[in-house]
Protein backbone atom coordinates (compact mmCIF):
# COMPACT_ATOMS: atom_id res chain seq x y z
CA UNK A 1 0.00 0.00 0.00
CA UNK A 2 0.99 3.59 -0.59
CA UNK A 3 2.50 5.76 2.13
CA UNK A 4 -0.03 7.99 3.85
CA UNK A 5 0.12 11.70 3.01
CA UNK A 6 -1.26 12.84 6.35
CA UNK A 7 -1.73 11.01 9.63
CA UNK A 8 -3.68 12.30 12.62
CA UNK A 9 -2.73 10.34 15.73
CA UNK A 10 -4.98 10.68 18.76
CA UNK A 11 -5.57 14.34 18.03
CA UNK A 12 -7.53 16.39 20.54
CA UNK A 13 -8.13 20.04 19.95
CA UNK A 14 -10.61 22.85 20.50
CA UNK A 15 -10.90 26.51 21.36
CA UNK A 16 -9.67 27.83 24.71
CA UNK A 17 -10.73 25.22 27.22
CA UNK A 18 -13.54 23.82 25.08
CA UNK A 19 -12.62 20.52 23.50
CA UNK A 20 -14.13 20.08 20.04
CA UNK A 21 -12.31 17.01 18.75
CA UNK A 22 -11.20 14.22 21.01
CA UNK A 23 -8.79 11.43 20.15
CA UNK A 24 -9.21 11.61 16.40
CA UNK A 25 -7.31 9.13 14.25
CA UNK A 26 -7.22 9.47 10.51
CA UNK A 27 -4.90 8.52 7.70
CA UNK A 28 -5.16 10.07 4.26
CA UNK A 29 -3.65 8.15 1.35
CA UNK A 30 -2.70 9.55 -2.05
CA UNK A 31 -5.68 8.07 -3.89
CA UNK A 32 -8.28 8.63 -1.17
CA UNK A 33 -11.61 10.32 -1.71
CA UNK A 34 -12.99 10.87 1.78
CA UNK A 35 -16.41 12.31 2.43
CA UNK A 36 -16.58 14.03 5.82
CA UNK A 37 -20.06 14.32 7.24
CA UNK A 38 -21.47 15.45 10.55
CA UNK A 39 -23.83 17.95 12.16
CA UNK A 40 -23.29 21.72 12.40
CA UNK A 41 -20.69 22.46 15.01
CA UNK A 42 -19.56 18.84 14.98
CA UNK A 43 -15.96 19.85 14.34
CA UNK A 44 -15.57 19.20 10.60
CA UNK A 45 -13.97 22.56 9.86
CA UNK A 46 -11.83 22.24 12.97
CA UNK A 47 -10.52 18.90 11.70
CA UNK A 48 -9.74 20.47 8.32
CA UNK A 49 -7.75 23.16 10.12
CA UNK A 50 -5.83 20.50 12.01
CA UNK A 51 -4.80 18.88 8.73
CA UNK A 52 -3.79 22.28 7.34
CA UNK A 53 -1.65 22.94 10.40
CA UNK A 54 -3.71 25.98 11.36
CA UNK A 55 -5.10 24.56 14.57
CA UNK A 56 -2.94 24.13 17.70
CA UNK A 57 -3.36 20.66 19.18
CA UNK A 58 -4.20 19.93 22.83
CA UNK A 59 -2.66 16.52 22.41
CA UNK A 60 -1.87 13.97 19.74
CA UNK A 61 0.19 14.30 16.60
CA UNK A 62 -0.07 15.49 13.04
CA UNK A 63 2.40 13.58 10.88
CA UNK A 64 3.45 13.71 7.24
CA UNK A 65 5.35 10.45 6.50
CA UNK A 66 6.53 11.62 3.09
CA UNK A 67 7.20 15.22 4.08
CA UNK A 68 4.60 17.96 4.15
CA UNK A 69 2.42 17.48 1.07
CA UNK A 70 1.10 20.33 -1.04
CA UNK A 71 -2.47 20.93 0.07
CA UNK A 72 -5.10 22.83 -1.88
CA UNK A 73 -7.78 24.34 0.36
CA UNK A 74 -11.24 25.61 -0.43
CA UNK A 75 -12.61 27.21 2.75
CA UNK A 76 -16.22 27.23 3.85
CA UNK A 77 -18.15 30.10 2.20
CA UNK A 78 -18.74 31.82 5.53
CA UNK A 79 -14.99 32.34 5.90
CA UNK A 80 -14.66 34.38 2.72
CA UNK A 81 -15.15 38.14 2.94
CA UNK A 82 -16.99 38.73 -0.32
CA UNK A 83 -16.83 42.51 0.05
CA UNK A 84 -13.03 42.55 0.13
CA UNK A 85 -11.69 44.41 -2.94
CA UNK A 86 -9.80 41.57 -4.58
CA UNK A 87 -10.17 40.48 -8.21
CA UNK A 88 -10.66 36.95 -9.51
CA UNK A 89 -7.19 37.13 -11.04
CA UNK A 90 -5.55 38.07 -7.73
CA UNK A 91 -7.61 35.48 -5.89
CA UNK A 92 -6.44 32.66 -8.15
CA UNK A 93 -2.85 33.96 -8.12
CA UNK A 94 -2.87 33.80 -4.32
CA UNK A 95 -2.88 30.01 -4.59
CA UNK A 96 0.67 30.08 -5.92
CA UNK A 97 3.75 30.12 -3.77
CA UNK A 98 6.51 32.44 -4.88
CA UNK A 99 9.88 30.87 -5.31
CA UNK A 100 11.61 33.04 -2.72
CA UNK A 101 9.72 34.06 0.38
CA UNK A 102 11.82 37.23 0.66
CA UNK A 103 10.90 38.29 -2.86
CA UNK A 104 7.23 37.42 -3.13
CA UNK A 105 6.68 37.97 -6.83
CA UNK A 106 5.42 35.51 -9.38
CA UNK A 107 7.65 34.21 -12.12
CA UNK A 108 6.71 34.47 -15.77
CA UNK A 109 5.85 30.78 -15.83
CA UNK A 110 3.54 31.18 -12.85
CA UNK A 111 1.75 34.09 -14.49
CA UNK A 112 1.15 31.97 -17.56
CA UNK A 113 -0.21 29.24 -15.35
CA UNK A 114 -2.70 31.64 -13.78
CA UNK A 115 -3.85 32.65 -17.23
CA UNK A 116 -4.31 29.08 -18.34
CA UNK A 117 -6.11 28.15 -15.13
CA UNK A 118 -8.56 31.05 -15.60
CA UNK A 119 -9.22 29.92 -19.15
CA UNK A 120 -9.71 26.28 -18.17
CA UNK A 121 -12.13 27.24 -15.41
CA UNK A 122 -14.09 29.50 -17.74
CA UNK A 123 -13.18 32.53 -15.65
CA UNK A 124 -11.04 34.35 -18.22
CA UNK A 125 -13.86 36.74 -19.13
CA UNK A 126 -14.38 37.84 -15.54
CA UNK A 127 -10.80 37.71 -14.30
CA UNK A 128 -10.69 41.44 -13.54
CA UNK A 129 -14.01 41.42 -11.70
CA UNK A 130 -14.00 41.85 -7.92
CA UNK A 131 -15.17 38.72 -6.13
CA UNK A 132 -18.15 40.62 -4.71
CA UNK A 133 -19.71 40.70 -8.18
CA UNK A 134 -19.59 36.95 -8.79
CA UNK A 135 -22.42 34.45 -8.59
CA UNK A 136 -22.19 31.71 -6.00
CA UNK A 137 -21.03 29.20 -8.60
CA UNK A 138 -18.47 31.54 -10.13
CA UNK A 139 -17.00 32.27 -6.70
CA UNK A 140 -16.72 28.57 -5.90
CA UNK A 141 -15.03 28.03 -9.27
CA UNK A 142 -12.56 30.81 -8.50
CA UNK A 143 -11.87 29.41 -5.04
CA UNK A 144 -11.43 25.93 -6.50
CA UNK A 145 -9.00 27.34 -9.06
CA UNK A 146 -7.05 28.98 -6.24
CA UNK A 147 -6.90 25.63 -4.45
CA UNK A 148 -5.80 23.75 -7.56
CA UNK A 149 -3.32 26.11 -9.16
CA UNK A 150 -0.34 24.89 -7.16
CA UNK A 151 -1.05 21.28 -8.23
CA UNK A 152 -1.76 19.89 -4.76
CA UNK A 153 -1.37 16.28 -3.65
CA UNK A 154 -4.35 16.67 -1.36
CA UNK A 155 -7.42 18.77 -2.09
CA UNK A 156 -9.59 19.77 0.86
CA UNK A 157 -13.01 21.24 0.21
CA UNK A 158 -15.13 22.55 3.09
CA UNK A 159 -18.75 22.48 1.94
CA UNK A 160 -18.18 23.64 -1.64
CA UNK A 161 -21.84 23.02 -2.43
CA UNK A 162 -23.27 25.93 -0.44
CA UNK A 163 -24.81 28.79 -2.45
CA UNK A 164 -24.66 26.87 -5.72
CA UNK A 165 -27.41 25.25 -7.75
CA UNK A 166 -27.79 21.55 -8.45
CA UNK A 167 -26.39 21.88 -11.93
CA UNK A 168 -23.15 23.46 -10.75
CA UNK A 169 -22.93 20.89 -7.99
CA UNK A 170 -23.09 18.04 -10.50
CA UNK A 171 -20.49 19.78 -12.65
CA UNK A 172 -18.24 20.15 -9.59
CA UNK A 173 -18.56 16.48 -8.70
CA UNK A 174 -17.61 15.58 -12.26
CA UNK A 175 -14.38 17.59 -11.91
CA UNK A 176 -13.64 16.07 -8.53
CA UNK A 177 -13.97 12.57 -9.93
CA UNK A 178 -11.37 13.45 -12.58
CA UNK A 179 -9.12 15.25 -10.11
CA UNK A 180 -9.16 12.24 -7.83
CA UNK A 181 -7.09 10.39 -10.44
CA UNK A 182 -4.24 12.77 -9.63
CA UNK A 183 -4.75 13.72 -6.00
CA UNK A 184 -6.36 12.75 -2.73
CA UNK A 185 -9.59 14.56 -1.95
CA UNK A 186 -11.24 15.31 1.36
CA UNK A 187 -14.74 16.67 0.86
CA UNK A 188 -16.76 18.08 3.75
CA UNK A 189 -20.49 18.10 3.20
CA UNK A 190 -23.76 18.10 5.05
CA UNK A 191 -25.43 16.43 2.18
CA UNK A 192 -24.36 12.83 2.27
CA UNK A 193 -27.00 11.97 -0.32
CA UNK A 194 -25.18 13.66 -3.17
CA UNK A 195 -21.61 12.84 -2.18
CA UNK A 196 -22.48 9.26 -1.36
CA UNK A 197 -22.03 7.72 -4.83
CA UNK A 198 -18.62 9.19 -5.54
CA UNK A 199 -16.62 9.16 -2.33
CA UNK A 200 -14.59 6.07 -1.56
CA UNK A 201 -14.72 6.34 2.22
CA UNK A 202 -16.74 8.27 4.75
CA UNK A 203 -15.69 9.89 8.00
CA UNK A 204 -18.34 11.01 10.47
CA UNK A 205 -17.31 13.83 12.78
CA UNK A 206 -19.94 14.48 15.43
CA UNK A 207 -20.39 15.34 19.04
CA UNK A 208 -20.71 11.82 20.36
CA UNK A 209 -17.68 9.82 21.22
CA UNK A 210 -18.12 6.69 19.20
CA UNK A 211 -16.02 4.35 17.20
CA UNK A 212 -17.35 2.02 14.57
CA UNK A 213 -15.07 -0.82 13.50
CA UNK A 214 -16.91 -2.00 10.40
CA UNK A 215 -16.84 -0.43 7.00
CA UNK A 216 -20.54 -0.58 6.28
CA UNK A 217 -22.57 2.59 6.43
CA UNK A 218 -26.28 2.42 6.92
CA UNK A 219 -28.97 4.66 8.28
CA UNK A 220 -29.03 2.55 11.43
CA UNK A 221 -25.33 3.00 11.99
CA UNK A 222 -25.64 6.74 11.59
CA UNK A 223 -28.41 6.72 14.15
CA UNK A 224 -26.17 4.96 16.63
CA UNK A 225 -23.61 7.72 16.13
CA UNK A 226 -26.26 10.32 16.55
CA UNK A 227 -25.07 11.69 13.24
CA UNK A 228 -28.14 13.54 12.01
CA UNK A 229 -27.47 13.65 8.30
CA UNK A 230 -29.89 12.60 5.64
CA UNK A 231 -29.04 9.45 3.85
CA UNK A 232 -30.77 9.40 0.51
CA UNK A 233 -28.80 6.65 -1.13
CA UNK A 234 -28.60 3.32 0.63
CA UNK A 235 -26.17 0.48 0.47
CA UNK A 236 -22.73 -0.43 1.68
CA UNK A 237 -20.00 2.17 1.43
CA UNK A 238 -16.70 1.72 3.17
CA UNK A 239 -16.15 4.46 5.68
CA UNK A 240 -14.16 5.57 8.67
CA UNK A 241 -15.61 7.04 11.77
CA UNK A 242 -13.72 9.44 13.95
CA UNK A 243 -13.95 9.57 17.67
CA UNK A 244 -15.44 12.79 18.93
CA UNK A 245 -16.86 13.80 22.22
CA UNK A 246 -20.10 15.02 23.67
CA UNK A 247 -20.45 18.72 24.32
CA UNK A 248 -22.77 18.26 27.31
Amino acid at each position, binding site marked *: MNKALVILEGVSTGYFSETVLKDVNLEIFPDDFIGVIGPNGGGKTTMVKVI*LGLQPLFSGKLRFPGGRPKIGYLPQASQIDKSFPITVHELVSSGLKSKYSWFPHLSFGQRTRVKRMLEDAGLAGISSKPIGELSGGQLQKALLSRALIDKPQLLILDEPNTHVDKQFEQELYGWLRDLNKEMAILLVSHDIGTIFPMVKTIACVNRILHYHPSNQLSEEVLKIYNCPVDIIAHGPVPHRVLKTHDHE
Partner: protein
Amino acid sequence: MSEFLSIFEYQFFRNALAAAVLTSVLAAMIGTYIVSRKIVFIGGGITHASFGGIGLAFYLGLNPFFGAAVFGVMTALGIEWISKKGKVREDSAIAILWSLGMALGIIFVFMTPGYTPNLMSFLFGSILSVRAPDLIILLVFCLLLIIVFAVFFRPILYTAFDPEFARTKGISVDAYRYLMSVLMAVAIVLSIRTVGIILVLSMFTVPQLTAMLFTRNFARIMPLAALWGISGSVIGLMAAYLLDIPTAAAIIFFLTIQFLIIKLIVIIRDQLRRERFRQ
Protein backbone atom coordinates in the same frame (compact mmCIF):
# COMPACT_ATOMS: atom_id res chain seq x y z
CA MET B 1 -6.97 86.34 -8.99
CA SER B 2 -3.45 87.63 -8.64
CA GLU B 3 -4.17 88.26 -4.99
CA PHE B 4 -5.30 84.65 -4.71
CA LEU B 5 -2.16 83.38 -6.41
CA SER B 6 0.04 85.49 -4.19
CA ILE B 7 -0.70 83.04 -1.39
CA PHE B 8 1.72 80.66 -3.07
CA GLU B 9 4.54 83.10 -2.38
CA TYR B 10 4.30 82.34 1.31
CA GLN B 11 6.59 79.61 2.52
CA PHE B 12 4.10 78.45 5.15
CA PHE B 13 1.42 77.94 2.51
CA ARG B 14 3.71 76.00 0.19
CA ASN B 15 4.70 73.83 3.16
CA ALA B 16 1.07 73.27 4.02
CA LEU B 17 0.34 72.28 0.46
CA ALA B 18 3.22 69.81 0.43
CA ALA B 19 2.10 68.39 3.78
CA ALA B 20 -1.44 67.95 2.47
CA VAL B 21 -0.22 66.10 -0.60
CA LEU B 22 2.18 63.84 1.32
CA THR B 23 -0.39 63.08 4.01
CA SER B 24 -2.93 62.22 1.31
CA VAL B 25 -0.49 59.79 -0.28
CA LEU B 26 0.41 57.94 2.90
CA ALA B 27 -3.19 57.90 4.10
CA ALA B 28 -4.27 56.53 0.72
CA MET B 29 -1.99 53.51 1.04
CA ILE B 30 -2.61 52.69 4.70
CA GLY B 31 -6.28 53.66 4.45
CA THR B 32 -6.89 51.18 1.64
CA TYR B 33 -5.60 48.44 3.93
CA ILE B 34 -7.76 49.73 6.80
CA VAL B 35 -10.96 50.03 4.76
CA SER B 36 -10.48 46.70 2.97
CA ARG B 37 -9.96 44.87 6.23
CA LYS B 38 -12.81 46.82 7.86
CA ILE B 39 -10.64 47.82 10.81
CA VAL B 40 -11.52 51.52 10.98
CA PHE B 41 -12.27 51.01 14.66
CA ILE B 42 -8.67 49.89 15.24
CA GLY B 43 -7.51 53.09 13.54
CA GLY B 44 -9.69 55.04 15.96
CA GLY B 45 -8.14 53.21 18.90
CA ILE B 46 -4.60 53.96 17.74
CA THR B 47 -5.44 57.61 17.08
CA HIS B 48 -6.93 58.30 20.48
CA ALA B 49 -4.49 56.19 22.47
CA SER B 50 -1.66 58.21 20.94
CA PHE B 51 -3.01 61.27 22.72
CA GLY B 52 -1.78 59.69 25.95
CA GLY B 53 1.70 59.69 24.46
CA ILE B 54 1.39 63.34 23.51
CA GLY B 55 0.46 64.22 27.10
CA LEU B 56 3.25 62.13 28.62
CA ALA B 57 5.83 63.62 26.26
CA PHE B 58 4.75 67.11 27.26
CA TYR B 59 5.03 66.22 30.89
CA LEU B 60 8.54 64.83 30.39
CA GLY B 61 9.55 67.67 28.10
CA LEU B 62 9.98 65.46 25.04
CA ASN B 63 8.78 65.85 21.47
CA PRO B 64 5.02 65.20 21.62
CA PHE B 65 4.99 63.36 18.30
CA PHE B 66 7.64 61.01 19.55
CA GLY B 67 5.37 60.23 22.50
CA ALA B 68 2.40 59.79 20.19
CA ALA B 69 4.36 57.42 17.95
CA VAL B 70 5.43 55.24 20.91
CA PHE B 71 1.88 55.04 22.28
CA GLY B 72 0.39 54.53 18.81
CA VAL B 73 2.73 51.70 17.88
CA MET B 74 2.30 50.00 21.26
CA THR B 75 -1.47 50.23 20.95
CA ALA B 76 -1.43 48.85 17.41
CA LEU B 77 0.78 45.92 18.40
CA GLY B 78 -1.31 45.32 21.52
CA ILE B 79 -4.55 45.17 19.52
CA GLU B 80 -3.02 42.79 16.97
CA TRP B 81 -1.74 40.61 19.80
CA ILE B 82 -5.10 40.58 21.57
CA SER B 83 -6.96 39.69 18.38
CA LYS B 84 -4.52 36.86 17.76
CA LYS B 85 -4.97 35.45 21.25
CA GLY B 86 -8.70 35.96 20.97
CA LYS B 87 -9.30 35.66 24.72
CA VAL B 88 -10.51 39.22 25.21
CA ARG B 89 -13.09 40.72 22.90
CA GLU B 90 -11.13 42.82 20.47
CA ASP B 91 -13.61 45.69 20.33
CA SER B 92 -13.72 45.98 24.12
CA ALA B 93 -9.94 46.10 24.29
CA ILE B 94 -9.89 48.85 21.66
CA ALA B 95 -12.52 50.85 23.53
CA ILE B 96 -10.47 50.62 26.73
CA LEU B 97 -7.23 51.74 25.05
CA TRP B 98 -9.13 54.48 23.19
CA SER B 99 -10.52 56.16 26.30
CA LEU B 100 -7.53 55.38 28.52
CA GLY B 101 -5.26 57.17 26.04
CA MET B 102 -7.46 60.25 26.02
CA ALA B 103 -7.68 60.25 29.83
CA LEU B 104 -3.91 59.91 30.25
CA GLY B 105 -3.32 62.67 27.73
CA ILE B 106 -5.58 65.08 29.56
CA ILE B 107 -4.11 64.20 32.98
CA PHE B 108 -0.50 64.65 31.84
CA VAL B 109 -1.21 67.89 30.03
CA PHE B 110 -2.98 69.17 33.13
CA MET B 111 -0.02 68.17 35.34
CA THR B 112 2.56 69.79 33.09
CA PRO B 113 3.77 72.81 35.08
CA GLY B 114 3.65 76.34 33.71
CA TYR B 115 3.37 76.11 29.98
CA THR B 116 0.01 74.81 28.79
CA PRO B 117 0.44 73.44 25.31
CA ASN B 118 -1.93 74.36 22.59
CA LEU B 119 -4.22 71.38 22.82
CA MET B 120 -6.25 72.57 19.89
CA SER B 121 -3.32 72.01 17.54
CA PHE B 122 -3.28 68.30 18.42
CA LEU B 123 -7.00 67.89 18.31
CA PHE B 124 -7.45 69.75 15.04
CA GLY B 125 -3.98 69.70 13.48
CA SER B 126 -1.64 72.55 12.64
CA ILE B 127 -0.89 72.19 8.98
CA LEU B 128 -0.05 75.90 8.62
CA SER B 129 2.89 75.54 11.00
CA VAL B 130 4.48 72.59 9.18
CA ARG B 131 8.19 73.15 8.51
CA ALA B 132 10.88 71.59 6.38
CA PRO B 133 11.94 68.86 8.88
CA ASP B 134 8.30 67.73 9.18
CA LEU B 135 8.06 67.53 5.42
CA ILE B 136 11.21 65.47 5.18
CA ILE B 137 9.85 62.98 7.70
CA LEU B 138 6.57 62.76 5.78
CA LEU B 139 8.42 62.31 2.49
CA VAL B 140 10.71 59.58 3.82
CA PHE B 141 7.77 57.69 5.31
CA CYS B 142 5.82 57.99 2.06
CA LEU B 143 8.74 56.56 0.11
CA LEU B 144 9.10 53.77 2.65
CA LEU B 145 5.42 52.87 2.29
CA ILE B 146 5.66 52.88 -1.48
CA ILE B 147 8.62 50.52 -1.34
CA VAL B 148 6.95 48.21 1.19
CA PHE B 149 3.76 48.02 -0.85
CA ALA B 150 5.62 47.57 -4.13
CA VAL B 151 7.82 44.74 -2.87
CA PHE B 152 5.39 42.97 -0.53
CA PHE B 153 2.13 43.70 -2.31
CA ARG B 154 1.05 40.08 -2.71
CA PRO B 155 1.62 38.87 0.86
CA ILE B 156 0.09 42.06 2.28
CA LEU B 157 -3.01 41.64 0.13
CA TYR B 158 -3.34 37.92 0.79
CA THR B 159 -2.87 38.12 4.56
CA ALA B 160 -5.42 40.93 4.69
CA PHE B 161 -7.96 39.00 2.63
CA ASP B 162 -7.66 35.42 3.86
CA PRO B 163 -4.97 34.98 6.53
CA GLU B 164 -5.63 31.27 7.06
CA PHE B 165 -5.25 30.45 3.40
CA ALA B 166 -2.15 32.64 3.23
CA ARG B 167 -0.68 30.64 6.10
CA THR B 168 -1.25 27.39 4.20
CA LYS B 169 0.86 28.91 1.41
CA GLY B 170 3.76 29.45 3.79
CA ILE B 171 3.35 33.22 4.14
CA SER B 172 4.52 34.55 7.53
CA VAL B 173 1.12 35.97 8.31
CA ASP B 174 1.97 37.19 11.82
CA ALA B 175 5.04 39.06 10.63
CA TYR B 176 3.03 40.89 7.97
CA ARG B 177 0.20 41.65 10.39
CA TYR B 178 2.62 43.18 12.88
CA LEU B 179 4.47 45.08 10.17
CA MET B 180 1.22 46.57 8.91
CA SER B 181 0.18 47.45 12.47
CA VAL B 182 3.37 49.44 12.99
CA LEU B 183 3.08 51.20 9.63
CA MET B 184 -0.56 51.98 10.35
CA ALA B 185 0.30 53.54 13.72
CA VAL B 186 3.14 55.64 12.33
CA ALA B 187 1.02 56.81 9.40
CA ILE B 188 -1.78 57.88 11.73
CA VAL B 189 0.54 59.72 14.11
CA LEU B 190 2.24 61.58 11.25
CA SER B 191 -1.15 62.61 9.88
CA ILE B 192 -2.24 63.93 13.26
CA ARG B 193 0.26 66.75 12.63
CA THR B 194 -1.70 67.72 9.51
CA VAL B 195 -5.36 67.20 10.40
CA GLY B 196 -5.45 66.47 14.14
CA ILE B 197 -6.73 63.61 16.24
CA ILE B 198 -10.42 64.33 15.79
CA LEU B 199 -10.38 64.44 11.99
CA VAL B 200 -7.51 62.13 11.06
CA LEU B 201 -9.59 59.01 10.48
CA SER B 202 -11.47 60.57 7.59
CA MET B 203 -8.18 61.03 5.70
CA PHE B 204 -7.83 57.24 5.94
CA THR B 205 -11.36 56.35 4.91
CA VAL B 206 -13.19 58.96 2.84
CA PRO B 207 -10.83 59.07 -0.20
CA GLN B 208 -10.84 55.25 -0.18
CA LEU B 209 -14.62 55.11 -0.16
CA THR B 210 -14.64 57.61 -3.02
CA ALA B 211 -12.14 55.49 -4.95
CA MET B 212 -14.20 52.38 -4.31
CA LEU B 213 -17.08 53.94 -6.21
CA PHE B 214 -14.84 53.49 -9.28
CA THR B 215 -12.99 50.27 -8.61
CA ARG B 216 -13.02 47.27 -6.29
CA ASN B 217 -9.45 46.33 -7.06
CA PHE B 218 -7.11 46.81 -4.09
CA ALA B 219 -4.17 47.78 -6.29
CA ARG B 220 -6.19 50.48 -8.05
CA ILE B 221 -7.91 51.84 -4.96
CA MET B 222 -4.59 53.05 -3.55
CA PRO B 223 -3.55 55.48 -6.32
CA LEU B 224 -7.12 56.61 -6.89
CA ALA B 225 -7.58 57.32 -3.18
CA ALA B 226 -4.35 59.33 -3.29
CA LEU B 227 -5.75 61.46 -6.13
CA TRP B 228 -9.06 62.05 -4.34
CA GLY B 229 -7.20 62.80 -1.12
CA ILE B 230 -4.93 65.31 -2.82
CA SER B 231 -7.77 67.05 -4.63
CA GLY B 232 -9.95 67.26 -1.51
CA SER B 233 -7.18 68.52 0.72
CA VAL B 234 -5.84 71.07 -1.76
CA ILE B 235 -9.34 72.45 -2.35
CA GLY B 236 -9.88 72.48 1.42
CA LEU B 237 -6.63 74.33 1.99
CA MET B 238 -7.54 77.00 -0.58
CA ALA B 239 -11.06 77.33 0.80
CA ALA B 240 -9.69 77.70 4.32
CA TYR B 241 -7.55 80.61 3.14
CA LEU B 242 -10.26 82.30 1.07
CA LEU B 243 -13.06 81.89 3.61
CA ASP B 244 -10.85 82.17 6.68
CA ILE B 245 -12.06 78.92 8.27
CA PRO B 246 -10.08 76.20 10.14
CA THR B 247 -7.91 74.28 7.68
CA ALA B 248 -8.30 70.67 8.83
CA ALA B 249 -12.06 70.99 9.06
CA ALA B 250 -12.17 72.50 5.57
CA ILE B 251 -10.07 69.61 4.18
CA ILE B 252 -12.31 66.97 5.70
CA PHE B 253 -15.40 68.88 4.57
CA PHE B 254 -14.26 68.88 0.94
CA LEU B 255 -13.14 65.24 1.04
CA THR B 256 -16.66 64.40 2.12
CA ILE B 257 -18.34 66.69 -0.40
CA GLN B 258 -16.36 64.99 -3.18
CA PHE B 259 -17.56 61.62 -1.96
CA LEU B 260 -21.19 62.73 -1.75
CA ILE B 261 -21.21 64.32 -5.21
CA ILE B 262 -19.73 61.25 -6.85
CA LYS B 263 -22.00 58.93 -4.91
CA LEU B 264 -24.96 60.98 -6.13
CA ILE B 265 -23.75 60.77 -9.73
CA VAL B 266 -23.41 57.01 -9.40
CA ILE B 267 -26.93 56.70 -7.96
CA ILE B 268 -28.43 58.82 -10.76
CA ARG B 269 -26.50 56.89 -13.41
CA ASP B 270 -27.68 53.55 -12.05
CA GLN B 271 -31.26 54.87 -11.91
CA LEU B 272 -31.09 55.99 -15.54
CA ARG B 273 -29.68 52.66 -16.61
CA ARG B 274 -32.42 50.83 -14.84
CA GLU B 275 -35.10 52.96 -16.49
CA ARG B 276 -33.59 52.43 -19.91
CA PHE B 277 -33.54 48.72 -19.21
CA ARG B 278 -37.22 48.73 -18.33
CA GLN B 279 -38.31 50.36 -21.60
